[in-house]
Structure formats: C-alpha cells, structure tokens
C-alpha cells in the first residue's frame, strides 16, 4: 500500500528502474526471464524441432528436407520398431508393477516401529542416489556370462549345472534388465510412499481395530484409500521414467540380443545418433509422446476422481 501511494505521488517523474520495481507485471516478467529463456531455448524449442525433424530426412552433417510422413510410414512397416514398442511396454508394465508391489511392501515395513529406522531408511535409498550408469556397470559384472556371482551361488547350491547366460538369451536378457531396473526403482517408490504412510493418523487404525478389523482389512480399507493420491503421483513418475529409460539398456545390452531388449529410447539413439539418421531417430522419439501423454492423463483423471470421492475440493 505504501508503495502504491508513493508511486502515485511521484507519478511519471520517477526513474525507469523504480517504476519497474513497482509494477507487478514488469517485475514478474524480469524475475521469470532467466528461467523462461533457458526453458524456451533448450526445452520448448527442441521439442518443436524434434517434431519437425521427424518429418525430414536430416542426417548428421547434412540438412534435411521435408518428406512428410515418410519416416513414420517406414517405421510403421518396420518390425524392429514394433518389437521395441512391445519391449518398452513389457518393460514398463512389468517393472512398474514389481516396483510398486515391492516398494509398497518395503514402505510398510519401514513404517513399523524399528530400531535404527533412520539408518535403514538412509541405506535403502542408496541405489537411487548413485549414478544409474555406474550401478548398471556393477550389474553388468553380476550378469557376466562366465563369472556371474549369481550363477556361482546357484551352482554351489546345486540348483543349476552351468552358468546362466543372463544377457545372451532374449528371455533372460529381458528378465535381467527388468530386475536391474526394479532394483534401482524400489527405493524411490518405497521412500515416497513411506512419507505418505506417515501422514495417516494412527487414530484411524485404532478405530478400525476397535471395530474388529483384521490386519488385511486395516490395510485395504484404511491405508490404501488414504494412500491412493500419492500412489497415483509416484507411479506416474515411475512409469514415465521407466518408459523413457535409456541408460540401463545402453550399458547392459545395447538393445541385444537380436533386439530383444531394444526400448524406443535406445532404438532412437541407435538410429539417430549412431546410425546418423537424425530424422528417423526423432520420429521414434516423437512416437513415444502419445504413450507419455496417455500415462499422464490417466493418472490425472484417476487423481481427480479420488479427490471427489473423498469429498475434497477439485
């Protein structure tokens, strides 16, 4: 208020700097400027450029010309592309379900009263903190065809006779990369769900117990409904990051054997950067967008329904 009267009194005679300081719009614009420039230049523009590149035949070192939907038409009849779509969906669905189940389980365990709880919570988050590529290299060594520690242990127990070919066989390779992804994803799901669990008032459980609810009923009718909004958000993030995963596959299999573990992101890299066909690579990347949008919208509307059910404002 003081500001307003001051500016009215002095009117236009004030220097430009002072006038900018007193206008919300101008000051807001000025404050937004650094972030806006960086995001428009390196996020919004490339997003548009990517869509445009998908319609051109640009190659590394050669500017492309507009070729309409030729890239997409080619991909439509490309069995490797469809295999990568299938792989990506399989990878995303399997890994997300496992991450959710195991993550929720771990969160419930950590929500119990435990000795050294803070310590356990800290070490559980470790896989998520270290660089994915570096932990993936450790998995590469764990999955080694000859010297795998897993094979060695299983042979010692007498459960198998020869080392498992973890990354050389299509089915094994798929299971192996999913396992590595789940290993890295559990901490994120567990710790965020734990934060959600801690906001549930204990009195609800006490009331349910007095009413004779079993442990399962307490989980099903108290924990789960209270946790649903945060589950929706956590799983949206988890699904998005799993769907667009690149690093793990690039380290462990580079899409092999016989493209069995190629995800859309790795195929896009292989065709676009390694193969030099920027246009085709961009088209594969753009083909991921509808899936991502579908995932976001699904969780968005799922969330809204929940809020309305709980009687909250939308």
């Amino acid at each position: 208020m003081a500001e307003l009267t001051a500016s009215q009194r002095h009117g236009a005679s004030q220097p430009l700097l002072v006038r900018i300081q007193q206008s919300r719009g101008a000051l807001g614009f000025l404050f937004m400027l650094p972030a806006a420039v960086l995001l428009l230049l390196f996020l919004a523009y490339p997003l548009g450029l990517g869509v445009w590149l998908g319609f051109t035949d640009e190659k590394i070192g050669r500017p492309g010309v507009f070729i309409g939907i030729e890239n997409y038409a080619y991909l439509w009849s490309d069995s490797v592309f469809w295999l990568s779509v299938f792989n990506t969906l399989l990878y995303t669905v399997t890994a997300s379900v496992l991450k959710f189940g195991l993550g929720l389980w771990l969160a419930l365990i950590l929500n119990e009263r435990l000795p050294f709880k803070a310590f356990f919570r800290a070490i559980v988050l470790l896989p998520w903190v270290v660089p994915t590529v570096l932990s993936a290299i450790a998995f590469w060594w764990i999955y080694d065809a000859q010297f795998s520690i897993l094979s060695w242990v299983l042979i010692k127990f007498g459960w198998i006779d020869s080392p498992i070919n973890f990354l050389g066989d299509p089915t094994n390779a798929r299971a192996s990369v999913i396992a590595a992804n789940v290993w890295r994803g559990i901490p994120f799901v567990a710790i965020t769900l734990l934060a959600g669990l801690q906001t549930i008032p204990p009195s609800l459980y006490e009331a349910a117990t007095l009413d004779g609810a079993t442990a399962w009923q307490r989980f099903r009718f108290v924990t789960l409904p209270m946790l649903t909004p945060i589950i929706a958000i956590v799983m949206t993030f988890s699904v998005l990051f799993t769907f667009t995963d690149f690093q793990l596959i690039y380290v462990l299999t580079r899409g092999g054997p016989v493209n069995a573990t190629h995800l859309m992101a790795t195929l896009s890299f292989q065709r676009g950067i390694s193969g030099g066909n920027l246009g085709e690579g961009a088209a594969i990347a753009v083909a991921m967008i509808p899936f991502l949008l579908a995932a976001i919208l699904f969780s968005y509307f799922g969330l809204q329904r929940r809020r309305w059910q709980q009687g909250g404002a939308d």
Partner: protein
Amino acid sequence: MAQLAHTSARADQGGGDEGGMGYLSNLPRRVVTIYLPLAIFCFVLLFPFYWMAITAVKPNDELTDYKNFSPFWVVQPTLDHIKYLLFETSYPGWLLNTIVISVAATVLSLLASIVAAYAIERLRFQGARGIGLTIFLAYLVPPSILFIPLAVMVFKLGLYDTRFALILTYPTFLIPFCTWLLMGYFRSIPYELEECALIDGASRWQILVKIILPLSVPGLISAGIFAFTLSWNEFIYALTFIQSSENKTVPVGVLTELVRSDVYEWGSLMAGALIGSLPVVILYSFFVEHYVSSMTGAVKE
C-alpha cells in the same frame, strides 16, 4: 542416541506401545513379517555395492579364479586397479569435468529457479498460476525425446564437445524441479513478514535476498544437492554431446573409455564406478533428510 537405544530395547521386548498398536504383535511374528523381509531387502539393495567394492580391490588372478578363492572375499587386496585408474587413464579429468559441469549447472539452475519461484509464488502477476503448472509439466518432458533435436542445436550453436553444451542443457530438467520445490518452500514463509518489509520501504529484491532466502536455506540446500546429484548422474546428453575423451563426464568416460576390447578390465571398471559414486554418496550421507524431503516434497505438492 538414547532415544535409539530406548527404541531398540522396546522393540526387543516384542514391539513397544507408544502411539501405536505394536503391543498386539509378538516377537516371533515380528521377526517373520518384518525383520526377515527387511534383512532380505537390505541385502539385495546393498549387494551390488559390496560386489563393486570387493571387485575393485581384487587382484586379477583372484578375480576370475572361483575354484581356489571364494568370490565373496578377497585374500590379497590390491590398489592396482585404483592406481591404474588415477594415473594411467583420463579418469581424474572426467572427475574434474563432472564436478565443474554439475556445480555450474546447479548454480545456474538455482539462481534462475529462485527468482522464478519467488515471482510465481509471491508477485502473483497475471498468469502466474498457469506458468507454475507449465513448469511442472516441463519436468515431465524426458531427456530421451529431447536429445536428438538438442544435439542438432548444440552442433549449430558451436557448443558440440564443450562443457557449455552440458551446462546449458542440464537446466532443462533442473529448473522445473528446483522451481517447483522452492515454490513449496516460499509458500510456507508467512506473508506478513513480507508485508512488514514492504511497509518499511524494502524493494522486492531486498525482500527476496534479505528475508525470503535466509528463511529458506533448508529448501535451497535440498534443491541444490538434489540438482547436483541429478547432473552428476546424467548420461544421455553427456553421451550425445561430448566426443573427445578429455571432455567426458565420469559415467560416460567409464563406460566408453574403460571398456575397450573384449577383455573387460573388471577391476578398474568397478573401481571407476565406485569412485564415481562416492561424491554423491558422501553428499547424500551428510544431507539424508534434505534428500528425502526434496524427493517427497516434489511428489507431494
């Protein structure tokens, strides 16, 4: 510490009763339903790190000889792999690159995010809500669909194979995250403080620097270390935009330079992975609470 000992003593007696219904379950039951699964989880989650560390100090003859040596232990630990890594490869250079790039990208993103978050949250200019939502959506745009057009841009701007290519592109995923986090922090600061300062004649800039920022130090630390970790771990941009060995970051360098032929140097690979993880793990160990709050904060909002 006293609290911890107290809690563990209670748990040993079969679950305490403070504020909960732990007294309803007895010790054997707790062992099967809680301690055993927890132990398995911890073992599985930590085993790769143990394996990394033990491989990094194993001499080569023990490394692949499972008949005479138990793979789980090392008889004659050696520092050869680490020495090789530090003195005969470009590894120290990669470490330096990663530090410079991560710090620069983090500082740049924090500065841009602080003013942006303040503007969205407190200036309440026209369209502030819409911009806040747009920023959140920007966080959902994955690097995997941006790297090809960004590579084209980086090349045209003449930034290819320089640190600036990464310093300028990392903020695309750091700014949305930091802004979103800081908006939540700024919201928790009472508006009255700001009004008092306004009446005393402070400018918006003075308010931001002298009132809001000192009050949101925990938020700034959370955003800062989280952004640093994200930049440290980034891979696909660094792989695409950097070509020459001396400009690579640790994750890219370890993967592309240490893996040369069909003969994998597992010892030095694991040493490289271990040393490359240490900085973020150390940072993490000092700021666990900040990590957790930034991770859950970004999700909860």
